[in-house]
Structures are given as C-alpha cells and as structure tokens.
C-alpha cells in the first residue's frame, strides 16, 4: 500500500488514498481520507457521499470495555471463555449477521458454526434472500457494474431508492456515469423508475411509472406477456395502476435498447410475493435476451452483505439459512433462517456478528433473544448488544481492519484501513472462540445441554 499512503511528518496527518467506504453496497473504493493520527480521527473524506462522510467523520473509538458479560465489564479472555462455554454447550445455536464485516471474519464464522453443528444465516435473508431463492428457480442475467456503466442505454430502477440508500449509484454506475459507449452520460441513457411512491430517486428518471401498491408481480407478468407477444387485457390498468399503453411503450424500449438493465430493490423482495416478484423480474430480463442484451440485478444494502452470501455459498453450497446439526450443511429458508429460528423459539443460544437484529427483527424474535444466551460482536453499542450475555467490542472493518469485501455485483475489493484500534477484529475474536470451543469439544465426554443452567430468566 506504500504508494497510496503519504505521511506528513510535521502534523502527524496521514492521507490514505483509494480507501473503500463499507457503508452501502456501492462499496466505493475512491475515498481519499485525511487522518489525524494524534486525535485518532478522520478529518476529511473526499469523494464520500453523505452516508460515507457520516461513516468516516463520525468514527470515534469509544472507550468501552473489551467485553461485557451480563452488562459488566470483562476482559477479552473472559469474554472468549464465556462465549466458548455457551457455544460448546448449546444444542441448537443460531449464528446471524455478517453483512458488516470482512470475508475473513465470515469464513471463520462459518468454520465455527460447522464445528458446533449450529445454524447460520446472514442479513441476506431479510434483504435479497428471496432473490437468492428466485435465482435457484430461474437463474439470472447479470453483470458487473462497470459493464453497465460502459454499455447500458436503458436503465430501469424498480422498487428501490438508491438516491437515499446507495447515494453514488447514479454517478458511479448507471445514470450520470461516463462509460465507453456512454460518453455523454445521461444523454446516452434512458432512465425509468418504477415504484409505488415518488421517492427521491424519481427526479433523475425520464419516465416514472407509479405502480399500485402490491401489484409489482402483476405488472412484471404483464410485461413478460407483452415481450412474448401475448394478448394482455387493458383491464390490467385497474389492477396495476399502469395503462396498457405505458406497458407497451416500456416493452418497445426494452426490446429495442442495446444493453438494458433492471435494478431492483427490496420493494420487490420484502413485500407481498417476495421470491415470486424477484423471479418475475429475473425472468423478464432473461426473456428479453431473445431480442437484445438484458441484465437484472438486485441493489443490495450493507457493505459486505454480498460477501456473506458468497462465503457461505462456497463453503456450504447454499447462500443463507444453513444448518449443520447432522454434520453437513442443509438449506431450508423458513426453517433455518434467523428470524424464524428466533421467533419460533428454536435457538437455545445465539451469536450475532456485525448486525443488529435487536433493532430490526420482529418483536417475537427479539423477545426470544432476550431469553437465551447471546453473543454479540460489534464496534458500536447496539440494541442486540444490550440484550446479550457476552458483548465484544471489535474494531471497525474498513477503518481499523483490512480484509476483503464483495461489492453487490460480486467484485471483490481489498480494504485499506487507516487507523489502528486497540480492539481486536471480528476475525480475531471468532478465531479465539473457535480455538477454545475446539479444545472443549475435543476433551468433552458428555454431550450437550448444559445451557439449560446458563439460560437467563425469562
């Protein structure tokens, strides 16, 4: 990294170029960070968007204990011992999270769950998990974002609001970006936005199609029919809020573009229809390949959520919701996914890595997490950390810790940390727990179940 890191000795100010912002799925790797090494603060984050600026400029190493056990300060070693005991004694531990950490930590985390015979799930399941299931049904036509930047002349955003959730998506990849065959940026592209409400992403669009709430699937299916030249009843407008004429116009544009893209958000995967919606949009893009080159790709939220899918897939064959109770991976969404496992009360222990289900899972799931021994790793105090038996303070990936993160399109990027941290990385803590659990399991005579004793009072 030598060339990118220029030290100014006089004021102990360091500049780190080409650093990567890990906040959202854009994973922009063009940050220029000015770091005050004495104050341990990032003072400037050139090229960062509003979210990236918040990430870097608000970064502060809080003075928290290395670990909390039942809310009381503890050493790292004590935390590791307690966590290892919980996992070694659990019958059905649930591992969840992984979207805001490095692939190195994710890999170690899957190793740990494999050894203890637990269940693992990532935030994918409450993000584009349904899209992963749709992929298993119909495949996909996808591309890295650079290909889209270079070639796409028709860009359709559907059920997503990148202006607020992926702020540089337009400028870096798909709307105002300058590419090989799109030298005039937005002038060389037609931008369409399909949504149930007029979001902040709508103003950049040339065409806004407001679909009735809950009618995305019907609209997509009608478009598929039109692409295939089938008859569609004009009454479709009543159901979808979109006139047949508008649909036909869109279909003509799709068939006649040179390189078309459908970017879709959780407006499809999280709502009524879930994986059917995702399958419909993936199929629409595949169908269009009879006429031209067409892509459909989900817009993903957290920095390394794509990495979580990718790592779990290469290690187990399945993207999320994987159980190891039988000594090998089994996949079953709904059964082995985290929100179900917690809400049903199945899990008897939990390990949450770099995520905060305590603030966004269903109330029933949160209520169960309060009853069982939970282990949490996070740089910040979170709702989940507050309800945990053991909460580790870890360093921040991308700022304190290097490693790999995968962009939402699968492009892997090596992170460039800019500040040291006194706290260990997620990977180091998981490794330490792994080693201790391995010792415990290798020497143990009796089998599991001792967590009944350790269970918190309801």
């Amino acid at each position: 990294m030598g060339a990118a890191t220029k030290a100014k000795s006089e004021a102990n100010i360091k500049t780190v170029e080409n650093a990567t912002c890990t906040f959202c799925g854009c994973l922009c790797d063009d940050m220029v960070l000015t770091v005050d090494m004495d104050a341990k603060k990032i003072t400037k984050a050139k090229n960062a968007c509003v979210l990236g600026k918040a990430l870097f400029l608000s970064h502060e190493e809080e003075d928290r204990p290395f670990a909390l056990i039942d809310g009381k300060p503890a050493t790292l070693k004590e935390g590791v011992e307690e966590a290892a005991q919980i996992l070694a004694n659990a019958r059905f531990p649930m591992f969840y999270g992984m979207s805001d950490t490095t692939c190195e930590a994710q890999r170690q985390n899957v190793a740990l769950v494999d050894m203890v015979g637990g269940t693992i799930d990532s935030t994918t399941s409450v993000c584009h998990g349904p899209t992963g299931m749709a992929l298993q049904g119909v495949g996909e036509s996808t591309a890295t974002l650079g290909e889209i930047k270079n070639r796409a002349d028709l860009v359709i955003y559907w059920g997503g609001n990148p202006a607020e959730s992926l702020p540089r998506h337009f400028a870096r990849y798909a709307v105002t970006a300058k590419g090989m065959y799109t030298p005039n940026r937005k002038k060389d592209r037609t931008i369409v936005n399909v949504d149930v409400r007029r979001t902040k992403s709508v103003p950049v669009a040339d065409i806004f199609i407001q679909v009735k709430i809950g009618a995305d699937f019907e609209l997509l299916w009608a478009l598929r029919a039109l692409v295939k030249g089938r008859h569609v009843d004009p009454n479709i407008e009543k159901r979808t809020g979109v006139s047949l004429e508008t649909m036909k116009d869109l279909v003509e544009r799709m068939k006649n573009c040179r390189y078309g893209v459908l970017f879709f958000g959780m407006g499809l995967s999280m709502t009524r229809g879930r994986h059917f919606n995702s399958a419909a949009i993936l199929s629409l893009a595949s169908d269009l390949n009879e006429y031209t080159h067409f892509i459909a790709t989900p817009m993903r939220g957290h920095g390394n959520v794509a990495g979580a899918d990718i790592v779990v897939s290469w290690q187990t064959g399945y993207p999320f919701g994987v159980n190891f109770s039988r000594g090998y991976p089994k996949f079953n969404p709904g059964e082995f996914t985290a929100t179900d496992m917690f809400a049903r009360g199945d899990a008897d222990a939990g390990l949450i890595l770099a995520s905060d289900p305590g603030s966004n899972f269903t109330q029933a799931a949160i209520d169960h997490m309060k009853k069982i021994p939970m282990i949490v790793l996070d740089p910040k105090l979170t709702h989940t950390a507050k309800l945990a038996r053991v909460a580790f303070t870890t360093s921040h990936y991308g700022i304190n810790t290097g490693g790999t993160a995968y962009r939402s399109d699968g492009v892997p990027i090596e992170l460039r940390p800019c500040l040291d941290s006194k706290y260990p990385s997620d990977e180091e803590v998981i490794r330490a727990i792994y080693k201790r659990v391995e010792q415990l399991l290798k020497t143990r005579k009796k089998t599991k179940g001792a967590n009944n004793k350790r269970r918190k009072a309801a």
Partner: protein
Amino acid sequence: MGSTLRIVNGRVYDPANDVDGKTRDICIKDGKIVKSVPPKTKCIDAKGMVVMPGGVDIHCHIAGAKANIARKLQPDDHRRDVHPRLDLKKVNTRSGTGGTVPSTFTTGYRYATMGYTTAMEAAVPPLLARHTLDEFEDTPVIDKGFYILMGNNVLLYQMLQEGRHEEIRNAVAWWLNATKSYTTKLVNPGGDEPWKGHRNATITQLNDKIDGYEQLTPRKIITSMVNTVEDLGLPHPVHIHCNNLGHSGNYKTTLETMKATGGRRIHITHIQFHSYGGKPNENPTSKAPQIAEYINNNSNITADVGQVMFGRSTSMTADAPLAWMLTRYSNDRRWVNADTECESGCGIIPFAYQEQVYTHALQWAIGLELFLLSKDPWRMVLSTDHPNGGTFTSYPRLIRTLMDREFRKQQMDSVNQKAVAKIKRGHHMEREYTLQEIAIVTRAGPARILGLKNKGHLGPGADADITIYDEHEDKELMFSAPRYVLKSGHLIIDNHEFRNNHEGKILHVAPGYDEGIKDVIRPFVEDFYTIKFDNYAVSDHYIPRHEVVPTAKQ
C-alpha cells in the same frame, strides 16, 4: 525438522523417469522426493500395490465467481450428495456438499481421496482473481493455480487494433502478476463484443471482423497471444477454448486455430467439444480422426480431451453465447449470464448427458475416439472439463473405460446406436490403455504440458505428491479409492482413511515487465472499470502459501 519416509515394495509407474511398473523404493524427506533416506526411516509397505505420482488436473472449474454462482443456483444438486465432517476428535475437517459443483472443502477432499494432488481452475476474469484465491484458501490438500481470461480483454483489443505488440507483452505480464495466475486463457476469442454490445450476436469464423474494431479478428487475437506467451516464456502455453464450441462443423475452426500458431506451442482444451463435423444447426458427426491425426503429426500442439460422461453436469463457461445456445437443448429452465466489465462473459446452465440422446452419445464416443487414436499420450491428456462434460469424480470410471475394452463395449452397446454407428471402426477400438499410459494422461503428461517440473513424477526433487493404489481388476474401483495418498510428504489418506488435513499452495507465474506499462493501463482502468487502478492488483495476503513457477527466462 527432518521428516522422512520410505515407500517400499510397490510397483512404480513413473513415466517421466522411464519407470514402468518396476519395484522401487521411493524416499521422501521434508515434503520432497530424495535419492535416499536413513535406513531406519518409517516405511509404507506397498507390496501388491501401484505407486504413481499424485494426479494433476490440467483443466477444471472449481473455484471463483462462476463456480460459486453455479453452486448457489443448484441446491437440488447438493442435497443428494452431502459431505459430512469427520469426527473432531480424530481429524478436524470441514463439512460441505457435493454434486456437480462441490463446495470448496469438499472439492479439495474429494480430489485428494481420489489421489489427485494438483488442479488448475481454467477460467477466471482477472478482475475477480481475488475471489478465486479466496476460495483456494478454503480448498484443502491440493495445490492449485488458475488461468486468466484474456481473449476478450478490451484494452488488449485496443492495443492489438493499433499494433502495439510490445505493450501487449508488458500488459499481459502485468496482468499475470497482478492476479497471481498461471497462464492466459482464450475463450471464444473475440466473441464477447458482439454478445455484449450487439444484441447477443456471436462470431463464427476466425477471420470475422469484431464489431467496433476494424483490424481485429479472432485469428489476430490468437496469434498475438500465442506469440506473447511464447515471448514471455511462460511454463504453460496459451490455453485455448476455440471459437464455435459445440457447433456442428466446428472441427474446421479447430484445425484452423491449430494451424494459425505457425508451429508455436499451444494447448487446445476440451478438444472433444471442438471435433464435430456436419452442418451448423444440424446433427453433428465425428471428426475425431482428423483432429487426432493433426495432433499426432504436430508436436507443438497439446490437448486435453474434455470427455463427456453420462449423468448430471453443469455447463459453466466464459463462452456466454454457448450457454445461451444450450438453453435450446436443456429441459432445465435455469440460465445464468454474467458479464465482467471489459474482460469476459459467462454462461451457466444445469445439464445432463443422456445415453439415449444421439448428440450426447456421439460426444461421449468422440472423446473416446480421441483417446484411442492418440499416438502420444503426453500430448492428449485426460479431462472432463469438470463439471462441463462430467465431474472430476468420474475420472476413475473414465480410466476404466480406457483400460478395459469389454467394459467399453458394454457401454457402446447400451447408448444411442445411431451415434455409435457414426464412429469409425478399426483396431484402435480394441486398444486398452496401460497403467503407464494412464499415469501419463493423468499425471506426467499434464505436469509436463503445464511446465511443472516438480509435479507428475517421482524423481529426486519432485514434490512428494504420491498416490498408492491397491491393484485391482476393476480399474474404476482401483482409481477411486487409493490406499495411501501423500501430499507434500504428508500422509493424507492412510489405509483408505482420511487422517490429516493439509493446506496446499498456489502455483503462479511472475514474468518480468516494464513498469511503464502501468501508465498505459491505469487511465483505461480509471475510465472504464469501476475500481481504482491501485486497488486492482491482488496483494500477497491472498497467497500465504505459494510457489512461483519460473518462466524460461527466469
């Protein structure tokens, strides 16, 4: 540490050192084969057994973005073939799943338990090299390397269009270094531009102009890369997946490609898929005799067969138009296309080869013809283009098919007879591969073609990657379950049991280049890629255990 071991009483097949079934001792010290070890060294008694170097797979698809999408795509393929972890108290292994695209750990374990110790992933877009290396870190036991896709690289197109040959040589060398890869791979050279940029079109002739590049043809791309790789002195020549894969009548393209190299070295991969006669869009016929004859007579050409095996497969390739074409012949509705900016395309579909289907049976028979007509096993080696023609776990069955004429006949009788009728009869059909020939096409040959001087043989200095098989009439049984497997001197399989885990290393090249080339590549990456040039090259963190295989100039 001086860990030593001696293998005694085994019949040794080490074709690279002209040892053909003689009983010899093999001595091992610190992971390498040596001339001798002290007399009191621990011994493995291989009486009644066959000793061979560890297998070397010259062409497979086992790790990286494409393989991983194929895994995600097929839960149905994994659930019927699970790979449990072993008892933690004995050996700490990882669980996984198999099927046509196994998880990484399962891939490593299954290669090892089959006696293979080296495998080369054959198609990686350079931008995604980190992904492949990440997966390699989780692919245990075996040594591995990968080839980078360079046949549709847009910057190289531009340079070639303008005749900037010196820059091409430097750029290719930079790319090999930046990705820690082993050689360059051409897949359907020139075919991505029409696919991505011109409504899914493709090219069919070596002299077709590539859209947008007046001076560019597949032929120019091929000759340029052949020359570049030869000039760089890479241990393995250009690895080519020719244009028109799978199309009837494509043998002409294959012959033309081989002739285009002007006598320079070239490796044609999965050549079975490129040996078809007939007219486009009609049923294929076999042109295996013509292809085999050309290769027999031209020592600059090497090839791996790409045998089709009946059963499930996954077609996954950088040749996106091919996967699109295959959707017409597949009952599975799943199709994946995945473009990588400025570098590659990709297509994936689940597939199954069926005995009763004319084309499938013919493809199977053409592969066998190529094996049986080959006069030089060193230059026509074994592969199934895993998992395209079949999985690597089907190699033992393929070996039996080559070694056992009765077994082959039985199969011939049970597949589509119209297809079998298209195959030339002759005494070659009676040929049975010997153990020595099997040792060549599965070990010594691939290692020599790859330029891996420490692999594929059992002479002093070689890596102690050794497989010991029980002798058995049923060669499928014999080759699927070795009694002992050593990797770098570590006993991995001991008396049929998996005893020790091991982490293999990355094999890559590091040819020299003029640093000035970065100033040429940098602006292109900054303009047309989406990551910074300074973030492109893979750092050494990704190859904690590695070996640089020297070029001819190093």
